[in-house]
């Protein structure tokens, strides 16, 4: 069973990741919100209006989702020549990334045991879980490219 994407998805993934993270950062910094407020005026564009609130949440989570999909495409696209050495490096990098992620998953599970359910604790749990996701992808991509372009060259 081969679940890898064709090689051309690597380039698509780079564009998606850049676009997604840019949109997410802009949404987090409130740039889009300020721009739309300037464009439509405060009377029309208001986050108290359910439609605009949904658009705001949709763009923020959409940006992050596009970024994640882009990173997935980068990580799981075939190389130009997908031979046994590449496959071995892929497996090795996967193990490395899983090991890196493990402590964060354990921390995430323990953070559920924190007493009380304040906003800060919820944010900590989300932060730990998002970090574990990021650590896996970046650990995998980093290790794979290090092995391929530095160590085995």
């Amino acid at each position: 069973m081969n679940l890898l994407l064709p090689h051309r998805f690597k380039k698509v993934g780079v564009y998606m990741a850049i676009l997604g993270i840019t949109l997410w950062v802009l949404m987090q910094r409130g740039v889009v919100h300020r721009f739309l407020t300037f464009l439509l005026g405060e009377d029309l564009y208001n986050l108290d209006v359910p439609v605009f609130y949904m658009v705001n949440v949709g763009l923020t989570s959409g940006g992050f989702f596009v970024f994640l999909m882009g990173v997935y495409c980068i990580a799981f696209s075939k190389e130009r020549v997908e031979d046994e050495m590449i496959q071995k490096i892929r497996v090795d990098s996967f193990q490395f990334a899983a090991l890196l992620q493990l402590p964060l998953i354990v921390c995430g599970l323990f953070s559920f045991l924190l007493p009380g359910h304040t906003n800060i604790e919820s944010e900590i749990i989300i932060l730990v879980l998002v970090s574990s996701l990021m650590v896996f992808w970046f650990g995998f991509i980093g290790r794979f490219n290090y092995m391929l372009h530095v160590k085995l060259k």
Partner: protein
Amino acid sequence: MKNFIKEERVRKQLTQAQLAELVQVSRQTIISIETNKYLPSTVLALKLAKALQQRVEDLFELEDSD
């Protein structure tokens, strides 16, 4: 494990890219094998031997540390 892939390839006047194409791997894999950074599988070792018209045991040699 020591190997004589590079010596045989040069003797046969093949480039790394040509040998890579013959055994259907990337040029980087050939580089890694020649510099002893990657140990090929039995299948790839047999393919290399066939491409270089040598016996596997003439291309690869066990060392004391193996």
